[in-house]
Structure formats: C-alpha cells, structure tokens
C-alpha cells in the first residue's frame, strides 16, 4: 500500500455519528470494495489464462468453501477467530491514533507463552489451566506491545517503526525458544515445541457431529471480546480518553488527560488482544508452536481492522469475511485448480479500496448521496 500513514489515519479515524455518511462509510464502501475486488480477481484470472468456465467454478467453489456446508462454516469461523481478536486490538489502537503494525509479533509472543505455560503446568485441571493459559497469552502480548507504547510515550519513537522491529525480534525469539531443550519436542531436532496438554486446549465445539470440524471455544472468546471492546471504547471513561487523544492529542492533553499513559495503555490493550489471538490459535487449532506459526495473521488483522472501520462489530463481520475468503480459497484451489495466491490478491485489493473511500466513491458515484458533501473531506 502506497498510502501515507497520515492518509490512512484520516480515513480510519473519521468521527462517527454523521447519519447517512456513517452508513455509507461502514456498509456501502466496504461492500463495494469487496465486489470490486472480486471483479478484479476475475480480471486477474482472465489475464493469467484461466478460461471463463473455470473462473465460474472458482467462484462457486469460493462460496461453497466459505459458507456452503457445516464444515465450510466451521472452517470460516475457525479462521475468523484470530483475525477478529487481533483486529479488535488494532482497531482500538487506530481509534487512539496509534498505527500498530506489531500484531504479528504480539500474536507470536502470546502464543509462545501460552504453549510454554500450558505444557509446564500440565498437572492442573482444565477449569484452571485453560483460562490461566489464555490470561498468560494476553499478559505477554500486552507486555510486548507496551514496549512500543513506552518507547513512543517516553522518547517519541514512532510506533510504526518500533512495532515492525519488534515483529522481527519476535521471530528470532521464537526460533531461539523452539531450540531450547525444555521447549523442543522430544526426539526432534527441528524447531518445534512440545504439544499443549489437553487440559489447556480450547474444547472443540462440533466434534460430536464430525471429528473433522475444527471450530473451537475461541468462538465465545471472540464474541465476548467484541462486546468488551465495544463497551471499552464507547461506554467507559478510559475508552473516551483513547478516542479523544486519537481525535486530537493536543486537546486531550489540555483537557488534563495523561497522554503518555494513554498511549501505553492503548498499546497494551491492543497487544493483549493480539496475544489472546495467538493463545486461541495455539490452544484451539495448532496445539504447538512452530517457526512463524502466526502465518501472517497479524497483517490480515490490519486489513480486517481497516475493513471493519475500527468498529468492533465491523471488525467481527470483516473477520468472518476474511475467514470465508481463506476457507473458500482452499476450496477454490481444490475444485478449480486456481492458485490460492489469488485469494491474497483479492484480500489486498479489498484493502486498497477500503483505504481509499474517495476512489470507491469516484468509481461508483450512484451508490452515494448526490450532493457530494459526504464524499468531500
């Protein structure tokens, strides 16, 4: 994305509560962005020599793989859980004026901590171990993000730079940890951790129907966090401080809000949610840590937060859409033989159009109010 950080922040942090325009920004622009991205995906397929029948099959497979069966819905939700959790944190950061690129590293650190804590205390019963493990994941993610927050608050180091660097550091910390004898799986010489004990795992929700259904109890965690973040942002005092310092840091400061503390707290909350995403992923899906187990979730979560306009409910739907694209993308490759890379292109195009609402309005003027006031910024 070639947009400047300022443009993005402007697009993201546009205040809510302007009626029709709010509806357009929250619903119409994202919907159009998704549709254009799918159409562009079709063009890309045509350009790479895929014939029209295969393209049709590919889109049928995309829909079928995303929402067409119980297994598809289960896969879609399973894929949505971590990106929604991490996306909630990023959206909260955006609201507070912080462009946090570090979800990837926070997911890794949270997940790694969850794995180590899980197998270290495997004698504890489920009712204690599982929640405790999630809390550890959250705290470690929060602490890791707070480093970037503290650097910003104390030295003015920009969080975009410091979180990117912290991502790189987290990859190496993970590589190092996976080679330690107390972490590495017995009998293996490649970097892979011991498994998380059953008592720490998020229970599968649907395995009584079919053991292949991977949906896990992280679903409830995700929904609870959507509610919590909504409450935090729009009903709590600290959430008001987050939003106020995001809208206008100077005004917030003169109103007596401690700007440094707010930055650190907002980063820590965002990191805690990303850490939870990592915890949910290792405890619900992966059952162990391996190099780069975050697999780009932290970057997908940025797209999800953008698509959801940093609103908890928007992020929930955006995350489900991205989960659907991922699950459907696999089906697309199986049924039509279309490369799974195409899904990456479609996701990227969605982000481009979301981040450029003016472009969407320019291409599809009839979707919006005619007087143009809503379009101008």
């Amino acid at each position: 994305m070639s947009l400047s950080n300022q443009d993005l922040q402007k697009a993201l942090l546009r205040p809510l509560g302007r009626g029709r325009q709010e509806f357009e920004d929250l619903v119409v622009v994202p919907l159009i962005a998704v549709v254009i991205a799918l159409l562009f995906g079709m063009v890309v397929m045509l350009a790479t020599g895929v014939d029209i029948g295969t393209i049709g099959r590919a889109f049928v497979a995309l829909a079928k793989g995303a929402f067409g069966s119980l297994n598809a819905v289960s896969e879609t939700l399973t894929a949505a859980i971590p990106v929604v959790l991490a996306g909630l944190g990023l959206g909260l950061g955006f609201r507070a004026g912080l462009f946090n690129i570090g979800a990837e590293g926070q997911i890794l650190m949270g997940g790694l901590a969850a794995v180590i804590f899980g197998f270290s205390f495997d004698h504890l019963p489920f009712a204690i171990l599982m929640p405790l493990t999630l809390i550890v994941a959250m705290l470690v993610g929060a602490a890791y993000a707070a480093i970037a927050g503290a650097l910003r608050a104390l030295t003015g180091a920009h969080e975009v730079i410091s979180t990117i660097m912290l991502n790189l550091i987290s990859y190496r910390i993970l590589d190092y940890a996976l080679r330690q004898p107390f972490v590495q799986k017995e009998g293996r010489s490649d970097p892979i951790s011991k498994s998380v004990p059953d008592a720490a795992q998020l229970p599968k929700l649907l395995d009584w129907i079919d053991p292949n259904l991977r949906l896990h109890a992280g679903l409830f965690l995700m929904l609870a966090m959507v509610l919590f973040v909504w409450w935090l942002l729009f009903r709590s005092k600290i959430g008001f401080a987050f939003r106020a310092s995001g809208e206008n840091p100077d005004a917030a400061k003169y109103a007596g809000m401690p700007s440094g503390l707010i930055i650190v707290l907002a980063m820590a909350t965002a990191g805690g949610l990303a850490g939870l995403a990592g915890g949910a992923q290792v405890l619900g899906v992966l059952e162990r840590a391996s190099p780069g187990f975050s697999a780009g979730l932290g970057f997908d979560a940025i797209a999800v937060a953008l698509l959801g306009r940093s609103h908890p409910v928007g992020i929930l739907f955006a995350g489900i859409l991205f989960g659907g694209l991922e699950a459907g993308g696999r089906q697309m490759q199986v049924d039509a033989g279309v490369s799974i890379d195409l899904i990456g292109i479609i996701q990227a195009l969605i982000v481009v159009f979301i981040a450029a609402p003016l472009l969407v309005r320019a291409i599809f003027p009839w979707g919006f109010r005619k007087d143009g006031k809503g379009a101008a910024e």
Partner: protein
Amino acid sequence: MKFLSKIGLAAALVAGSMTAANAFTACQVTDVGGIDDAGFNQTAWKGVEDAKAAMGIEGRFLESQAETDYAANLNSLNDGSCDIIVTVGFLMGDATKAAAEANPNQKYSIVDFAYDPTIPNVLGQVFATDQAAFLAGYLAAGMSKSGVVGTFGGLNIPPVTAFMDGFVYGVNHYNSQHGTSVSVLGWDPAAKEGLFTNNFESLDDGRAFAQNLYDEGADIVMPVAGPVGLGSAALASELGADALKIIGVDADQVATDPDHEAIYLTSVLKRMDSTVGAAIAAAADGTFAGGLTVGTLENDGVGLAPFHAFEDAVPAELKAELDAVRAGIIDGSIKVGM
C-alpha cells in the same frame, strides 16, 4: 453492478453444472515449497501426473503456504471426492495422522514419514536417500579439485539429513579407498549439526549459503532444501562450472531447471514419482494397504542421475568405481554409515 453480478452468477452456474466427474481422483497436499519447486514437491506431483496420463484418473492439489495450513488443507479435501490423499513431507506427519484417524475409510499416503506403529489407512513412503547420496559424495570427492566439498539443508529433519549423512559417508569412503583427505563442510553426522537455511523457500538463502561454502574453498555443493538450491545454482552459473558445481536433489535437476544445466554435476534422485504413482495404482485397483514402502538403490527408489554436461569430464575409472560402490551397497558389502 447488478447486471455484472448476474452475468457472473450465470457463468458460475453454467460452469458449475458442467463438472460431473466421477473418475477416480487422487488429491495431493504439497509442502510449503510449492508445486513448481523443481524438486521435492514437483517430483511427488509428477507421480500424480504420470498416473493421470497412464490411468486416466483425475488429479487435484492443494498448496500449503505455511505449516499452519496442513490441517486446514487436509480438512478441505474431506468432502469424499478424493479416492486417495497424498501428503508430501515429513512435517505433515502429525496432521496426516490426525486426519487418518478421524477418517478411517479414507486412504492416505504420506511421503517421507514412517509411522510406528503403522496406521491401517496410511501408506508411508520413505527413501534410503543416504544410499544414493553416498554415491554422490563419492563422486564429489573424486571430482573436487580443491579437496573441499560442501552441503547444507533446509531444516534439521531426518528426510533432509539422510542426504547429508550419505554425502559425508561417501566422501569418507572415497578418502579411505584413495588415501585422500577431501573434507566436507556443512554437516557433521556424529553431532547431527550443520548448516541449515531453516526454510524451503528463499532462493537468496540458497545463493548466500553456497557463496559462504565457496568462500571456504568448496568447489562442489549439494543443497538439500528444495527450491532454495535454485539460488545456489544461479550463483554457480555466474561463477562458472570450473569454480563451483552443484549436485541436485530429489529430481534430475537438469530436467527441472534447464537454465542451469551446465553446472549440475549430477542429482541425487528420490523417486517419489514412482512411489506416489504406485500408491495411486494400488488404491485404484483395490490392493491398497497401509504400512510402509521403502525406496532403495536396489528397487530404483533412489539413484544417481546422469552426469549430462559432465559425462566426458567424469573419468571412466571413477564411473567404474561408482558402479562397484553401488553394487557393494546393494549386496551389503559396503555399509552406509560411520
């Protein structure tokens, strides 16, 4: 908008109704290197392609983009349309086991993993690649002018280090036969430690690791890391075959990477195409059984590729010795090991 989406829908429906294939279908889940990696995954996929051509079956594949995709990919092949699911790679061992136990009626075959105890619906395919790599090591020791050869791997896992073990033992065998002292950089079979890129994707790493080995004096390098080795081949092409030669792995890389045919001394063949093809054929004619199949020098499951550009450069004497070593390994008179 509406108009466009209607066209799309209509096209999709037409296309959807055209696919009514009930043919035998073999499905494959690749590892992260990708289906076109000129080596490991491509060779395994060739097994399916060959079966498609020979038996008229359908073939589908699903590429893994990260280790975290394995379970999800296996899961999306569970709709009953696959008659056999072939998983490619040691790292998929746990995911394949879980899927096979959840779906006892689905036939699976995995490349590079041996379950102990075996699973009734999984056929493991493993390879005595150390035998073939032993020949490559012997050849490299005989061809090296600097007296230093090198190797590096993608990940420190048994299917990779088997190549490196055999390579070192082959060099050692040459030394003991000829009283030379050719040394191997990059792998210590006793300590199980060596050079690893820790990925199977980065061509840049392949170039950098080969450069390091070259700087340390190696004039023949065997990269065991899938497409990573293509980066090493690119470096060797720039330096010229006199300075640096590459030994390919998995497939005959002169065939899969013809751009660099001038620098491949030979390739250590791991005939996954034939074992994958055999597993598919067994599933198709009803003789499929879980267990283990082992590719060796004796059954041509592993071997050494032709020397191609170096056909004339390899002395006839060395070729004759290689034939003798090969026969010795098969009849057991030469042990591949310390």
